[in-house]
């Protein structure tokens, strides 16, 4: 373990920026000077822009691995010659001050996008090119429930370097070799001070086992829960583990000299009405009940069964962002109660 000061950490970051893109929490002014602001992970040009003391960013950092828009490849056709250019991302990135839940979110995405064939080459490449510098949370913030999903505010399992804020600076823990390599140049002293243990107390949120969900699929509960849902994309776009996308080809130029086509991938959301619309106009998920239910089943039933990972890390962002107060922890509590009631009723019959 090493001990360093904030100034030394900042100097190290500034030096890093010379050779890699550093992405860190940054304050963004909103509304043309109306005084509101948002905290977002963004590329920074100087450590002066980095916000070290924060709770949670408005968006998860998933966009630096699965960008909201990316060109997958380009096709040029000239007379009889066709070329295809795959645009694999090359840049080295450092994600500074990633929270344990968001890092765990990347582990979930790995299970779905890398460990499962066919692997997503673009995502995988960005994962390889990125070093994660974690920053422990001293405790859970409002809406957080990572501990209910098996995470912890000081969980260092999914980062390359872990930082803990202590008196006089930060304790630096090297977790992986990649992390150790990145730390070269950091001014720090060796210490045998142990890492502080974060306060893990948080809301008790019961999470039903994956196999218990199918029995609840046809309950009226889902229609009632989704009554207030607006079918927007907000909860899925802020979520560190939602990963749906759309792919389309666009002709960028066409003329007598040839044609230039781009294959584009952009985020999409299962909460959108058109998401499941198929040829002929049929929609197997026609109502917002179908869609909201799908989001939760995807997280707690389908993903665990198909990929071995619950696709929620308890970051609380979907709760904070929902314009109409739909709350995943409330849902989990109600679903657990519903399952218990059904089981009771089943016993009564038996």
């Amino acid at each position, binding site marked *: 373990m090493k001990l360093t000061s904030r100034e030394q950490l900042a100097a190290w970051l500034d030096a890093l920026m010379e050779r890699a893109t550093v992405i860190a929490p940054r304050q963004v002014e*909103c*509304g*043309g000077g*109306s005084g509101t602001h*948002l905290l977002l992970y963004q590329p920074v040009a100087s450590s002066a822009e980095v916000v070290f003391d924060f709770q949670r960013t*408005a968006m998860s950092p998933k966009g630096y691995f699965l960008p909201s828009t990316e060109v997958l490849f380009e096709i040029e056709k000239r007379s009889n010659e066709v070329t295809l250019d795959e645009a694999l991302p090359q840049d080295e990135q450092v994600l500074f001050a990633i929270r344990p839940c968001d890092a765990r979110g990347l582990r979930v995405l790995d299970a779905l996008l890398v460990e499962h064939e066919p692997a997503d080459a673009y995502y995988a490449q960005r994962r390889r090119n990125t070093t994660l510098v974690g920053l422990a949370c001293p405790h859970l913030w409002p809406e957080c429930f990572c501990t209910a999903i098996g995470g912890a505010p000081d969980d260092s399992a999914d980062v390359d370097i872990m930082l803990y804020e202590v008196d006089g600076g930060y304790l630096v823990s090297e977790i992986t070799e990649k992390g150790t390599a990145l730390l070269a140049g950091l001014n720090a002293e060796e210490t045998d001070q142990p890492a502080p243990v974060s306060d893990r107390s948080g809301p008790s949120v019961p999470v039903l086992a994956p196999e218990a969900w199918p029995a609840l699929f046809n309950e009226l509960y889902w229609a*009632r829960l989704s009554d*207030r849902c607006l079918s927007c994309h907000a909860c899925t776009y802020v979520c560190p583990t939602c990963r749906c996308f759309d792919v389309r080809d666009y002709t960028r130029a066409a003329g007598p000299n040839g044609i230039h086509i781009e294959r584009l991938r952009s985020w999409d959301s299962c909460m959108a009405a058109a998401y499941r619309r198929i040829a002929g106009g049929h929609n197997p998920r026609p109502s917002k009940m179908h869609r909201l239910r799908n989001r939760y089943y995807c997280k707690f039933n389908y993903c665990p069964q198909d990929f071995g990972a619950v696709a929620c890390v308890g970051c609380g962002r979907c709760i904070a962002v929902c*314009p109409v107060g739909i*709350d995943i922890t409330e849902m989990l509590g109600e679903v657990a109660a519903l399952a218990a009631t059904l089981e009771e009723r089943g016993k009564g019959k038996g």
Partner: protein
Amino acid sequence: MSESIQTALRTRARELLELGEVSCVIGYERSPRGRVRPAFIYEPADADRLVWDNTCHHNLMVYLHDRKTPPRRGEEVPRVAVVAKPCDVRALNVLLHEGQIAREKVFVIGVACAGMCEEGTEELQARCRRCRERVPIFYDALVGEPPKVTAVDEDWADVVELEGMSAAERLAFWTREFDRCIRCYACRQACPGCYCFECMAEQVDPLWVGIAIELPEKAFFHVMRAYHLAGRCVECNACELACPMHIPLSLLNRKIAKEVEALFGYRAGGDPQTPPPLATFRKDEELPL
């Protein structure tokens, strides 16, 4: 005041459900985290979940679109009751003029409104400081007394400020704002006026705008949406309040509302008798264009 409105709302909701007048009452409730959110009450016994205070800002008219068709083919469209502030009723008025909602299928519980506050403060929202209505233009039942309003803010100060900028400054302003947009469509989905089966932002044939979540697509979406709300936006601010990226959408919509008012002397949904200008055709009309 809030408290007596709340009691009256609960009583009215319970009655309507007990008498079978409506299948559901759409109002507001408090979430376990203490924030007000839309509520759907189906049982008389649940009427006491309804609340009223100066944070009931959602425009519940948006939910009437979910109830335009019967739950199962061949059944009747169920009648619902909805709690409506004066601005919300103007939105309903727009929808009635557009033939979206059958008036007899909605029981309007109008609320006399003293204004909604900015989140976490006791300060009135800017749009509420400008509001001239305070009592809905129509309703089936009215709850609350018309509040005493002493001063009303000048209507277009913020828009005039924007108009005062040079074109380059305005472009820079909106570029910065739209850049943050994530195309989550929360604004559109929260808006009672945006009910297209297929929004032009997602239409494939014809293709107006691609799927990229980039500045040109975002700017196109916002400008087109503002145009589609011309003479229809009632300034309920549901869009802006739903936006997770704090984009000042109301400024854009108000700029157009100002033009519509200047050209046609019309405020969206302001009067039950006057149809919206963009849905009106008059042979003898001459506009200073």
